[in-house]
């Protein structure tokens, strides 16, 4: 098991999970969103290979109105 902080919420995943796994767990594999891992942008192309470590932070952002 590993624990990560996704959008400031703690979630637990099986050891060896990737970013894709985390997104699937959330049910969010498509739609207009982007991801930062440990405060660094992670391109979509890398979701599948990118392993997660215990304590990682994942930011998932989507469009909002803005000024």
């Amino acid at each position: 098991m590993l624990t990560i902080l996704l959008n400031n919420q703690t979630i637990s995943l099986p050891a060896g999970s990737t970013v894709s796994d985390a997104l699937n767990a959330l049910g969010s594999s498509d739609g207009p969103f982007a991801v930062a891992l440990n405060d660094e942008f992670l391109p979509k192309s890398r979701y599948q290979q990118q392993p997660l470590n215990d304590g990682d932070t994942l930011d998932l952002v989507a469009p909002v109105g803005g000024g």
Partner: protein
Amino acid sequence: MADLLTLYGEVFQSRFLLGTALYSSPATMLDSVAASRCEIVTLGLRRQNPKDRDGQTLWSAIQSTGKRLLPNTAGCKSAKEAINLAEMSREIFATDWIKLEVIGDDYNLQPCPFGLLEAAAELTLRGFKVLPYCTDDLVLCQKLLDAGCQVLMPWGSPIGTGLGLMNKYNLKTLRERLPHVPLIVDAGLGAPSQACEAMEMGFDAVLLNTAVAKAAQPAVMAQAFAAAIDAGRSAYRAGLMLKRQTASPSTPTIGQPFWHQHPK
């Protein structure tokens, strides 16, 4: 001959950029965008579960306008945050345009000159077309240009205040000293007359959000700003009269009746 605005090689007829936040509903936002005749809208990114309905609805609404998107990095407090959020924007919105905000203070929400310059330089290197939200500091503006920015967006006054053009001396200095740079007054405008004056001073465009979204009737206000911006631009091009300290009659004084030089 058309009077067009060119930003990073793209050509626009409208000189009004409108934000998409703070409206009471997506429908009101859409009405306001339509009434504004704008061709560029700003928007942002926030943590959301992509399945979130509200976010999806607004995003669909924004998309439906077909306007050019100008995503922002609102709320970022460091160059690093802004750079990463810009990258996320580019991936989502498939545009390398970015309204770059690096906030230096939580209360006045002003640009941080240091983080802003650092982020602007790095993002330019990464191929972004950076439109920095900056102060009216000439030296900062010159350094942003040196770092590769081709458009600058100095503030009028702090975001959301409606205080208008707080430092006209600095704004005039910017316009005089950077005559060929597209300059967009961004933030702090609260009334069409303020936007009109910015255009009369020779600014190239105006970006705002709160003054429209928080009007009692946002779409009517959007239309009012659009007209005022056009008016200010026309006035700038038509050559304003010079101010005088002393009065000067409009109706001619020659031939004034009842003034007699009586024969002796």
